[in-house]
């Protein structure tokens, strides 16, 4: 499967106040591929994606993106002040026409129509993530950048959200870059994992990375074992994880 190159970064370094936030990172994002960025807290994951979106000055290296690349961004959270009254529909239709077919289609695929009239402040974690994802889709993105999309969700909510993301990837053939903490999903449903701790420790196919000594060093044998245990547990309970691995294997 040959994929169109969307964005490529070479030797990216970012320094702030004498500290190295990102060190010599290179990565390629292609259409139809899901890339996950994992790493411990403070590893520079958010810094790196902000740099890729052009929100941050980079000190070294270069970023090349395809002509007219449209990025859909799903931030970690909104600064939802209680004093700002806004409904889900109001938020989604900021600078957008809420009557267009595209709008309704995005709303339907993220399943947010039933919460259109609810105030944004009243949404649960999962609902808010779906609304943010819908907002990102409205821009007809060729590349989706998601910052910890599953944070604060329970196991079922996470599985649903990730399934939705995979489904959207298949539907509009966009590239996906997501920052993630939950390793068990990363291992199962992405095409490539990048393990970041200021520099890129290791990257490649999820199975390869999970056995990589740098990965084990970074997350510790202990946590790696926990993840394995967790996956095991999950397998028996829901079988969702196993299925996702299957899909992944068939494709590549």
């Amino acid at each position, binding site marked *: 499967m040959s994929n169109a190159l969307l964005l490529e970064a070479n030797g990216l370094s970012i320094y702030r106040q004498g500290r190295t936030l990102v060190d010599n990172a290179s990565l390629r994002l292609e259409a139809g591929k899901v890339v996950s960025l994992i790493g411990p807290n403070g590893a520079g994951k958010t810094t790196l994606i902000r740099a890729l979106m052009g929100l941050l000055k980079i000190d070294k290296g270069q970023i090349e993106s395809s002509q007219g690349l449209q990025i859909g*961004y799903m*931030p970690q959270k909104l600064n939802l002040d209680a004093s700002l*009254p*806004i409904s889900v529909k109001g938020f989604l239709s900021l600078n957008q026409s809420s009557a267009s077919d595209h709008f309704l289609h995005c709303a339907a695929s993220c399943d947010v129509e039933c919460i259109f009239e609810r105030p944004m402040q009243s949404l649960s974690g999962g609902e808010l993530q779906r609304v943010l994802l819908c907002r990102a889709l409205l821009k007809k993105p060729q590349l989706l950048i998601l910052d910890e999309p599953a944070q604060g969700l329970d196991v079922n909510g996470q599985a649903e959200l990730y399934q939705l993301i995979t489904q959207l990837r298949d539907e509009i053939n966009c590239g996906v870059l997501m920052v993630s903490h939950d390793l068990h999903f990363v291992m199962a449903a992405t095409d490539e994992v990048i393990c970041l701790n200021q520099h890129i420790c290791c990257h490649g196919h999820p199975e390869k990375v999970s056995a990589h000594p740098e990965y084990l060093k970074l997350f510790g044998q202990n946590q790696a074992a926990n993840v394995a245990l967790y996956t095991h547990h999950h397998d028996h309970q829901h079988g969702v994880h196993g299925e996702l691995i299957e899909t992944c294997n068939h494709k590549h």
Partner: protein
Amino acid sequence: MVSLSKPVITNTNMLELLLAPILSGVIIALLAGPLGCFIIWRRLAYFGDALAHSALLGVALGLVLQVSTQLAIVGSCAILAISLAQIKQHGELSSDTWLGVLSHGSLAFSIIAISLAGAGRVDLYGYLFGDLLSADLNDAALIAACALVLGIYLWRCWDSLVCICLNEDLALVEGIAVNRHKLLLMIAIAFITAMSMKLVGALLITALLIIPAASARTFANSPAGMALIAMASALVALMLGIFASYQWDIPTGPAIVAGACLLFALSKTSTLFSK
């Protein structure tokens, strides 16, 4: 207390005397609605105070440099807004510390400068608490022109401005010029501060911006709705204030703010009953 420039209102000259003040009051109230909302949403209340104090510094500068007071006020407010926007982006001290320094620093310096340079010539009380009746038709025309520009800006960029309040990174990725809008919003607040000096005075300007918007929050379910209700609430407060001032001979600026507070109290009480 009677301010120096306060003219005597009789039944014969009432319309003539009140036309310009009421006109400028109405325009300011209409602008205070949406701008007050942004002050609340972006938590800029303290910034409004700092601007008001630097407006006073503008009065002092106008006296010392012998230029038009209105122009000096707009100038000093705009300079404060722009320099604060720079400071906010980098630095070790938090922005409210900076605001505290600039706000009270300019208050102190302007009071000193006004009392030295303008002793006997300047009505300090009028600048602190407003002197609406001193507004003439020239003031009203200037206010109307500024308000038209600001109004068009707010109308056209409303969605982008709300988006910036929600998440600046998201707004940037969506192609909104976040820094430019933030600066323009600050300058807009600087302008309305300068314009409402005569209406409510430097010490009460922030109140005129915040209180109607705060009352509006109770009843609004969209950002634009909140701005419209805030406009209406500011207009009612203005009318209440002018009426009370005429009826009981009390200072107009504080009367308007007291009217706004009354509406705020009513809006909060109404939520108690609806629950």
